[in-house]
């Protein structure tokens, strides 16, 4: 793969160059200590060295709130919203967020394709950047290394003297055409990334684990501090559930059909007519959330559907951690299996001595 050197002082120039090719989106500081993806207006305000953004780039393909159509009750006509597929360049994306988009492509491309999502996904280029894992990242444990290039057109590896830019696709090469402030890179040694937070089980063994932990006492235990605020769902880059509402104008003649993100930790998510709720307790909801990440979809795709971004852990005010849940489930499962097998052995030895 071709790789070139980009000096730190040329990053803003590169962004300006990219802006001539399409609308550029990149991480910016937000609030006191956070970051968010925004449309770039001033290339100098872009931050490529960040831990994670509040929301992933999912928001550009499945907006938090979205108008699906407008209708008139006088004429009985409706009109769908136009979605334009203008060229868009996403700069400074971490590998786990890129993988999350590829996973959503699967979810929304299957069966009855989600046309709004797919339309928004057209004409997009992705430029990745490496990151230093913090206490919440665990993407490597779910099979996504920092330098996972899948999905990217270009990838920036950060090191002391700037960036090594890997040209991953033809499209990536085109993005750099006519941009002169690059120099051929010398030998770059690989960088190793340390993850302090990890699943204590290989992700290949997760499907097996989740065949056995449905009735585990761990669900109750880890949900004791949960208040069901839904934050873990709403910051997750692979959660895609939404709710649709009809909103009527005050004239009572016209209205809109709108959708917004929803989450399985929330009260009305599993509520049905007649006032029943088939996942009443927070423990049942946590179990469902985790099964959605490691079992239900994974059984079909063979991959964990959690990308290890750590957002749900970082933003849980109660301090609930998906990594801790999985590790506890594993410990608890291994213990019960051990007890079962010891019992079996004891039984066998008792029987043989009889």
């Amino acid at each position, binding site marked *: 793969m071709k790789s070139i050197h980009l000096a730190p002082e040329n990053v803003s120039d590169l962004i300006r160059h990219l802006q001539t090719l399409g609308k550029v989106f990149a991480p910016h500081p*937000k*609030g*006191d*200590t*956070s970051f*968010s993806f925004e449309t770039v207006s001033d290339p100098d305000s872009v931050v490529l060295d960040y831990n994670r953004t*509040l*929301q992933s780039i999912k*928001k550009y393909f499945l907006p*938090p*709130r979205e108008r699906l159509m407008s209708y008139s009750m006088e004429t009985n006509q409706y009109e769908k919203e136009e979605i334009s597929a203008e060229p868009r360049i996403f700069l400074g994306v971490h590998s786990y967020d890129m993988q999350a988009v590829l996973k959503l492509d699967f979810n929304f491309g299957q069966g009855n394709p989600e046309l709004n999502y797919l339309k928004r996904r057209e004409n997009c280029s992705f430029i990745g950047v490496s990151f230093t894992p913090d206490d919440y990242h665990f993407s490597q444990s779910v099979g996504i290394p920092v330098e996972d290039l899948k999905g990217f057109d270009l990838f920036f590896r950060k090191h002391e003297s700037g960036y090594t830019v890997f040209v991953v696709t033809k499209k990536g090469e085109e993005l750099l055409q006519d941009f002169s402030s690059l120099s051929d890179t010398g030998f770059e040694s690989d960088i190793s990334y340390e993850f302090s937070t990890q699943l204590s089980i290989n992700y290949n063994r997760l499907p097996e684990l989740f065949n056995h932990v449905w009735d585990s006492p761990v669900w109750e235990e880890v949900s*004791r*501090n*949960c*208040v*069901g*605020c*839904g*934050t873990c769902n*709403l*910051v997750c880059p692979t959660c895609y559930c939404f709710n649709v*509402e009809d*909103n*009527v104008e*005050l*004239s*009572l003649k016209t209205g809109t059909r709108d959708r*917004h*993100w929803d*989450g399985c930790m*929330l*009260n*009305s998510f599993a509520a049905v007519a007649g006032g029943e709720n088939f996942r*009443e307790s*927070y423990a049942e909801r946590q179990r469902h959330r985790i099964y959605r990440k490691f079992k239900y979809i994974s059984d079909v795709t063979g991959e964990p559907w959690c990308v290890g971004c750590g957002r749900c852990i970082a*933003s849980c*005010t*109660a*301090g609930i951690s998906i990594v801790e849940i999985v590790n506890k489930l594993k410990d608890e499962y291994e213990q019960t299996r051990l007890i079962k097998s010891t019992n079996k052995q004891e039984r066998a030895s008792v029987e043989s001595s009889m």
Partner: protein
Amino acid sequence: MAKPKVAFFDFTSCEGCQLNKLNLENHLLDVLEHIDIVEFREAMDDKADEYDIAFIEGSISTPQCVERIHDIRRRAKTLIALGSCASIGGINSMKNLQPIESVREAVYGKDKYLFPTLPAIPVSAIVKVDYEIYGCPMSIPEFLQVFKSLIMGKAPIKSDSPVCVECKLKENECLFERGMVCLGPITRSGCDAICPSFGQFCTGCRGLVPNADKNAMTDILMKHGLSTDEASKRLLMFNSYVSDEMVN
């Protein structure tokens, strides 16, 4: 079709919710297109015998309130509690945390026996309430949503998710990240997270979500630096009234 007859009543409150209705401004004339207002003390003098829709502001806090709310309920086809005081008891119900005698004395001094008083409770503790519009002051978008639904004859959508949802949809930086503590995780949404969006932590004015776990929330508040006493005061500010079904 005749326009529905609508009336507004105030009980123990600051009348801020009624004022907020007059603040509808851009929508006020459109709202008036659909209804006949037959009673609204803050805006007019007329009185009527019956109502299609009665909006109630304020909590119930005296024997006279009890009598009056029964009378209104008898004459109203649909009754709606408006704002925190009417729907959840609100700030007024902090009174309930003290012995009623000392409250009377603090307010009325030696004349305390001239003014009989009760614990401050929401309208639904006395009569059937058909719908509730939350907030201190009441949320205008929610008022319009309920209003349109009623005129169209359908059930309004009632939010039972917490304020956190609205912050996340707006990609607000969490106020806990800024070293504040916020009641967003268990407070009923529908305000579009207006306070957190402007850097003010949520005080819980819209009441708690239906199955709010106050113990778990207290733990969160304490984990982020409040003492037991401070955490309990935060939770009680708007939510001192606890109905039986809300007790965990």
